[in-house]
């Protein structure tokens, strides 16, 4: 019965949507995420082109870690994630599980994530963070579940991926390591995440040759992506609507505000 319905539906649709419908069915048969149409595009064509189907898969597990000094406090990683969450199913709440609660509301708001959407869960350690995440992933009322962990065993990441696929709630693990050595050891360990991101701060770009800190610039690497291509970009930090933009090519060229506008408007 399902097959005929699918055929009838598919036959009446234009080719592009038929393809999407077929992909969705294949995805279901393959036991993967609940339909590949559930995507969150970045609105930056260069990034979306590297991701399968042009966006970040919802109802899946994604990993974000810091680099170059950000491993420990994960400020850049959290800001990059805040930009994604700002655009992910607002105003639904986000469950953010962590052992040491150092998230600062005004800082989240500046990256587009309304702090009142964040339900912070103060766990005791990595294990309890992962347990809380798994509980949260069973609640479809949540837009996403975030967990800040150091150690992430492969089985634990598989469970998270499975729970996310079952409920359609998107899961993010934000890795935080106490030292660079620990980071080096953990970074290469396999994780059952659909995408793995590595973000770090790079020197800011002056605005109109003004002294002081200019535009915040990040280096963003997509190190692993199921069905996609690893890639890396130099981006401007996400703005108060959660959108990132490609940074202008030349370090010394001050980009005019008008130049950045179209890139932001895409999303």
């Amino acid at each position, binding site marked *: 019965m399902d097959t005929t319905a699918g055929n009838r539906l598919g036959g009446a649709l234009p080719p592009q949507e038929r393809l999407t419908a077929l992909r969705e069915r294949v995805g279901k048969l393959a036991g993967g995420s609940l339909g590949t149409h559930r995507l969150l595009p970045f609105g930056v064509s260069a990034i979306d082109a590297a991701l399968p189907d042009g966006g970040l898969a919802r109802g899946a597990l994604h990993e974000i870690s810091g680099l*170059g*000094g*950000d491993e*420990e*406090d*994960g*400020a*850049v990683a*959290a*800001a*990059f994630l*805040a930009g994604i969450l700002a655009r992910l199913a607002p105003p639904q*709440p986000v*469950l953010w599980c962590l052992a*040491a609660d*150092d*998230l*600062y*509301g*005004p*800082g*989240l*708001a*500046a*990256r587009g994530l*309304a*702090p*009142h959407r*964040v*339900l*912070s*869960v*103060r*766990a*005791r350690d990595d294990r*309890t963070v992962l*347990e*809380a995440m798994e*509980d*949260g992933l*069973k*609640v*479809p*009322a*949540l837009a996403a579940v975030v967990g800040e962990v150091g150690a992430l065993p492969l089985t634990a990441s598989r469970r998270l991926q499975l729970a996310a696929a079952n409920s359609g709630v998107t899961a993010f693990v934000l890795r935080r390591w106490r030292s660079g050595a620990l980071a080096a050891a953990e970074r290469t360990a396999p994780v059952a995440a659909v995408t793995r991101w590595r973000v*770090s*701060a*790079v*020197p*800011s770009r*002056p605005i109109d040759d003004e*002294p*002081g*800190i*200019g535009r*915040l*610039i*990040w280096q963003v690497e997509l190190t692993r992506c199921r069905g996609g291509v690893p890639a890396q970009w130099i981006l401007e*930090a996400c703005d*108060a609507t959660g959108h990132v933009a490609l940074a202008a090519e030349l370090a010394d060229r001050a980009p005019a505000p008008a130049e950045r506008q179209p890139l932001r408007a895409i999303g």
Partner: protein
Amino acid sequence: MEWLGGRGLLAAVDSRLADSIAPGMPLADARAIAPGIVALDADPEGDAAALRKLAHWCGRYSPWTATDGMDGIWLDLTGVAHLFGDEASLAADLVARLKRQGFSARAAIADTPGAASALARAGREAIAVVPSGAQRVALALVPVGALRLPLETVELMDRLGLRRIGDLYKLPRPAMVARFGLAAAERLDQALGTLPEPLSPLPPTPTRSSHRRFAEPIAQPEDLAAAIASLADALCCALAGDGVGARRLALRFYRVDGVVLALEAGTAQASRDPRHLAHLFAERLDRIEPDLGIEDMRLEALVVEPLGSRQASLDRTGAGADRSGDALANLVDRLENRLGAGSVTRMRPRDSHIPERAVERVPAFAPGAGGTPWDTERLRPLRLLARPEPIEAVAPIPDDPPVLFRWRRLLHRIRASDGPERILGEWWRSREEETELRDYYSIEDTDGRRFWVFRSGLHRPGASPSWFLHGVFP
């Protein structure tokens, strides 16, 4: 045994010796009558604690129990006797169980606490059930000392030949008040029921609880979980009848050996979803050691709040939006029960210039936690350290940010900075804050890492300023 004025007086005696020696007797006399008795020092505090524990255990019979003096426990049996057959079988069951625990006990059931207390202590039968309204007859032959009167009053009555409570019936009331005081007359009235004696200082509240007694003590986790589920079902029915939901619950386990174990659970939003409430306790059953078995369980809603009829149909056909809201509330409850109260919070802006005070943590469902505007005008870090950490900084120019600093053993060379933003202490809070001043700088090192640091106090020539790192920018 009590020591009074250097003389050893007996405070209590074993029931086997009660015929020959009695409390109040000097130890020397007692030794003469019953040579070879073992005398132990009295331990009033220990006795009181044990009595409180026992009163707690008696909660399996009635939700309302209290200690009575040094040696008694009151149970309010209004409306509960039928659960045990009748009043007589309840009393028999209670005395039998106490005996198994090693207590010799007497019980009396009467309309008034005064009558029950008197008969239990001085009545002829070990278990007395006074029919309703018959306390006057039942008390007539009981010694006056059982009326909870001061010792002098009892001695005075004794001298006047008033030895039994029945003797007092004949006294005209004005004479009795004049001779023995109003308190004595009131004690008599309370025992007879002509003057009410409220046992609880609190206004009577409808107790919302459910109760299960087991024919055989249970110990298996599955059996306990099943019992919890059935208790939750019964409680939720009662809650639905009153149109309320539970915010705070207690589950008590009465063990065969007289130990009472308890679990408490809270909910973020009033709930009467039996599956959810049962889950809150079932999750923590591993903390309960059933030992030889649990013979009774009681689930009680300690705090309730009004709750519409909305939730009744939750598990079956709940409407989408309501259902998802409840699912979230249930999640918060589960997490808080596992990780501790207050572990799930939301951020709310607060009117303060001090960065660490500008955000407050409120419960997940606190009113007004959503939709408050946030100030994004000022540059603020994404991670704020719980408390500012001191850094070693090199800042050669007064009122300029450092050019170099060391934080957590790493050296950072500064290439760009913004600031200062001066933040003054909130002088109305304390005298120390009156003079507090912080100059905040946003600084970026040569790797592009960005920090929020401040210098504490004004720059003073000759004095090296103290620098702190307070947050990290993305």
